[in-house]
């Protein structure tokens, strides 16, 4: 018998609906696990203990009267520290927002509140979601659940650890270049970035607005489908949200088909070159073998310009960062470090409020956008982005999903890449292409290498998350979900 905090959303939903388990019991189990482990792991920046228990109690009372609010009524989840919850602190892992309190709910939070979800607390992250290890948090690093000497990945490292260590049933993260999928891979959980335009970013503290997307980190693909279904949808507060046919998680659950006959899986040559460890290659190749055994057809595909995606990302993203972070000037909210003059106050507030990685990216973006360099950097990157988008479109004429590893290696040691920005950036080499092209992608655990989890990265067609998650689910069912939790 699993402990209550180890349940999936799907399992908990059944037990709540049958009355066998209360939301208070589920929430207490998660809070207990946080209390036992978070001193060592530091997944949470703040735990909303009293509020969570109150929400759980209200959920129990509601459901006792037959008034279930939605699929998430009574389900305890964790939230990355860059999504606003009204009246709660939200720092984006930065000193500059240390005491900032959310004025309204992010749309994803409002949607989950309307469905009765219980919010356990806010999870640690790289400052402003800039990083691949959660070492860039102004509040100290999050530790890998299997080895406190190692990183959990990032930037949604706190959310990944909270899920992997059963401190919650599921968590929300955000993904600009791999920030959901890479930590999910390193921690051995499922991490999903929906198609750009599926999920509203209203109330998400922006990093690079043309790339940012919110998504779930969960213990299994079914839970990812459920959480994605709950947070999707067109939103007047985010003009980039698309008016498309909603995703329905039951289409995946009830498809009845576990085989993958007729599904074409593409292996991009550009992704399967030198840039991964032997362990990772072996594990992901074995997982591709499972897809094949389920009836999928495996084909090599050419994805030209895919290896330029990281360079495109490291031009476009800093440009948007430099613009988006201009608002943190110490005037209306956030840290103000007063100097003699207004200029001095700006200089001091932003120097003492921003950490090294944030400053680096702001400077990089300022440079790439400055007179004389704009054409060479920004415009050229936007043109290469077109080439990359076209390459994905061409590949998806022949295949239904593209498969690669999620990360080139397993969890690395804290400090190992801290002084080499480029080495850290290369962590995103397999994940960043889908942000640049706007496509959906999921990382699913495919077992361990030398004791640390490896993830398989599946990319799908725009707004066809159903096919993508069906393939991921078929894999998971075929191998059993057990490896995810232990």
């Amino acid at each position, binding site marked *: 018998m699993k402990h209550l905090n180890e349940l999936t959303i799907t399992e908990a939903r059944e037990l709540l609906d049958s009355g066998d388990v209360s939301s208070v019991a589920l929430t207490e189990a998660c809070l207990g696990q946080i209390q036992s482990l978070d001193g060592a792991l530091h997944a949470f920046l703040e735990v909303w203990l009293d509020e969570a228990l109150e929400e759980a109690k209200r959920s129990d009372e509601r459901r006792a009267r037959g008034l279930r609010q939605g699929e998430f009524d009574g389900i305890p989840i964790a939230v990355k520290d860059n999504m606003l919850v009204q009246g709660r602190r939200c720092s984006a892992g930065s000193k500059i927002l240390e005491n900032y309190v959310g004025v309204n709910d992010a749309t994803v939070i409002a949607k989950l509140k309307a469905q009765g979800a219980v919010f356990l607390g806010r999870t640690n992250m790289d400052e402003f979601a800039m990083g691949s290890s959660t070492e860039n948090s102004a509040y100290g690093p999050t530790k890998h659940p299997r080895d406190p000497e190692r990183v959990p990945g990032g930037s949604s490292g706190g959310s990944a650890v909270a899920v992997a260590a059963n401190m919650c049933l599921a968590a929300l993260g955000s993904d600009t270049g791999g920030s959901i999928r890479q930590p999910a891979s390193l921690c051995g959980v499922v991490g999903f970035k929906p198609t*750009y335009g599926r999920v509203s970013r209203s109330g998400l503290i922006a990093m690079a607005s043309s790339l940012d997307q919110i998504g779930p980190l969960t213990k299994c693909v079914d839970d990812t489908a459920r959480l994605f279904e709950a947070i999707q949808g067109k939103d007047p507060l985010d003009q980039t949200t698309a008016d498309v046919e909603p995703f329905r998680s039951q289409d995946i659950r009830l498809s009845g088909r576990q085989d993958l006959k007729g599904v074409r899986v593409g292996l991009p040559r550009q992704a399967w070159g030198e840039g991964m460890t032997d362990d990772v290659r072996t594990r992901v190749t074995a997982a591709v073998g499972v897809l094949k055994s389920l009836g999928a057809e495996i084909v090599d595909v050419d994805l030209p310009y895919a290896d330029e995606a990281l360079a*495109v990302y490291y031009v476009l993203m800093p440009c948007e960062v430099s613009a988006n972070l201009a608002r943190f000037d110490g005037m209306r909210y956030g840290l*103000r470090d007063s100097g003699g003059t207004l200029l001095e106050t700006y200089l001091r507030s932003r120097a003492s409020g921003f950490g090294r990685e944030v400053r680096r990216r702001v400077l990089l973006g300022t440079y790439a956008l*400055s007179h004389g360099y704009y054409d*060479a950097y920004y415009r050229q990157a936007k*043109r*290469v982005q*077109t*080439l990359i988008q076209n390459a994905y479109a061409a590949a998806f004429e022949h295949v239904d999903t593209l498969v690669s590893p999620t990360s080139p290696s397993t969890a690395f040691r804290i400090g190992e890449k801290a002084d080499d*920005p480029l080495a850290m950036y290369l962590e995103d080499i397999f994940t960043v292409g889908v942000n640049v092209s706007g496509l959906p992608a999921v990382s699913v655990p495919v077992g361990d290498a030398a004791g640390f989890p490896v993830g398989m990265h599946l990319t799908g067609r725009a707004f066809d998350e159903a096919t993508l998650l069906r393939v991921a689910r078929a894999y998971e069912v075929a191998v059993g979900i057990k490896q995810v939790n232990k």
Partner: protein
Amino acid sequence: MPLTREDVSALAHLARIGLSDEELARAEKELEGVLGYVDRLQKVNTTGVEEAAPPAVAAASFREDAVIACDEVGRQTILSNFPARQDDLLKVPAIFEAPKR
């Protein structure tokens, strides 16, 4: 396109980030590394290629240009987020030098 210390100092000023000499030196080195990497894009032939359009869904619709009022809790939260305040007013440093008498 090599960066000089003066370039980095000018960028930091433009970005309104006050950096010490030591931090400028480190930023120079780190920026050079990243720029060295992204310079690979210069080798890609993009003749006749359009810049990527905003994602297809962007700007597909407009909402009504109407004021969405915030509730009193929201208003109080906005006030409490002010770094400095006097009653309900936001206090900011003077923008101009003190006027001559």
